């Protein structure tokens, strides 16, 4: 059901999201849960995995998040935000509960090389660039890492990020701007 190509392509921000996947409020309201799942599963998993940093736990939390969303699908209120923000809020709560339960932060599990990962520029230095970004991401604290994941892995808008984190949209934008600058500086230093 989940297309790997789709899974990879939906894990970026709006600039690179496929046009057909871009969301509109009208389509969200009429969308079935299965369609929502198909559209968001890779991004939810990526976001959850970035929080819990353990593959098995990420799978459990992701499954739990979708099950909770399925059970509570009738409680969604469009006036309180988009369906994606609602779903990522559920995933975030499940992930934080998992982190609290474990009482420890798992070290980031080394992700296996994804054979379907796109080669951005087709040059040999792409591996070096990825290593630089990965090292820069490791320098971020948990909250900064979360907001980066919500923006660039989950592909949420600033308003949706604000809804997930329970903060104002301007505050979310400010935090995101500072984090991106910090991430860029870290990348530049390593480059």
């Amino acid at each position, binding site marked *: 059901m989940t297309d790997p190509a789709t899974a990879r392509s939906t894990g970026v921000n709006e600039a690179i999201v496929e046009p057909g996947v871009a969301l509109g409020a009208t389509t969200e309201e009429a969308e079935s849960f299965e369609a929502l799942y198909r559209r968001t599963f890779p991004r939810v998993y990526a976001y959850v995995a970035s929080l819990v940093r353990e593959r098995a736990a990420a*799978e459990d939390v992701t499954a739990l998040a979708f099950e909770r969303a399925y059970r509570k699908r009738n409680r969604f209120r469009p006036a309180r935000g988009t369906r994606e923000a609602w779903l990522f809020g559920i995933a975030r709560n499940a992930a934080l509960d998992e982190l609290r339960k474990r009482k420890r932060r798992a070290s980031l599990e080394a992700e296996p090389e994804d054979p379907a990962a796109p080669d951005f520029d087709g040059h040999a230095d792409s591996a070096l660039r990825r290593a630089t970004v990965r090292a820069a991401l490791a320098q971020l604290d948990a909250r900064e890492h979360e907001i980066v994941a919500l923006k660039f892995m989950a592909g949420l808008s600033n308003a949706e990020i604000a809804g997930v984190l329970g903060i104002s949209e301007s505050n979310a934008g400010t935090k995101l701007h500072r984090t991106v600058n910090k991430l860029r500086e870290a990348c530049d230093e390593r480059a």
Partner: protein
Amino acid sequence: MNERELALAVAAEAPAPDPDFARQLDERVARGFPRDSRAARLTLARARAASVLRRRPPVAALGAIASVLIALAVAVSLIGGESATRHADVPGTSGADQRPGGAIELDSPTDGKIANPAPAQPPAAAKRRSEALDAGLATEPAIVRPHPDAATTLRDDGTQLAVPVPPAPRPGFAPGTRDRRIERSATLALAAPDDRLDKVAADIAAVTDRYRGFVLSSSLATGDEGATTGGSFELRIPAARLDAALADLAELGQVRSRTTAGQDVTAAFVTAGDRLEAARAERASLLTRLENATTDNAAAALRLQLDATAGEINRLKSRIAVLRIRTDYANVAVTLQSTDADTAAPASGERDGLRGALDDAADSLGTALELAIRALGVAIPLALVAAAVALAARAIRRRRRESALH
């Protein structure tokens, strides 16, 4: 590295789900996350048990429950106290209700009574009244009070209605006596509209005079606005014309109650007459003996006996006169009250028809409103406490979750 390149690079770092996991989750989603499998139920039960065991004591929930219990206890105590107070306030069970505000008690000689002189009477009536005063039957009208034997009855609206009670029958029947002496008494309770009370009071005096009687005492009560709200009259009417006088008095207003009573005092009257004759015979005998007395000492002793006998004769004559007047004039107590008061506060038992139904509906609505206000008085603070507890619990839960990121 520009922002676009950075975004692409970060997105490339997004962990990808395992294909097996993705397939399993696809199937679960397609089946709607079924709960019927035994393994799923066991997993769910274990998760719930672990959650319960892991969970800290629900301080917020316990606090909310304690608040609810305290509020309920306070509400129950308030309602209970209110009920007791209401029970004590039942009309007729407390002095306050027996004296509604603004009304002047009719039967109290001191509280709020406005003593009015007896209505103007013709000279003949005044003369008859004067005779009664001389005979010791009447009291000065300045002491305005209802009949000494008056009893108090409570109306349904809590006000008191003075109903003089006829003297209780006492033994005095003299068998074989043809000329019977009957002391008669009657009570009459009249009601009239407020605007007619003054006229009815004047008519009572006029009827009394028409039947050769007199007004022994009267009092009129006035309300806050100075209007007459009621009154009481003590009349003396010739016993032979009592029935006719009562009939005329009854036509002056709405008769609320009417009682008549009689006491046979023939025995006392005959006894006093017999003793008077004996005393007179005794005096005649003493006078004869005094004429024949030969010594001064004997004459002095006879004179002393004559004085005592004369005193006895006077006392018996006075008693006979009193008995004669008491039997010649009937004692009539008339109370006058307003019918408007009944309209303003109808007794529950008198309510009927559409008006009664409307009154009952208004009462029920008022009671329900009162109950709702009292309930809100309990529910609103309770809801505020519950909301505060819920907000605090939510904030605590959120803070605990957020602490996982530190």
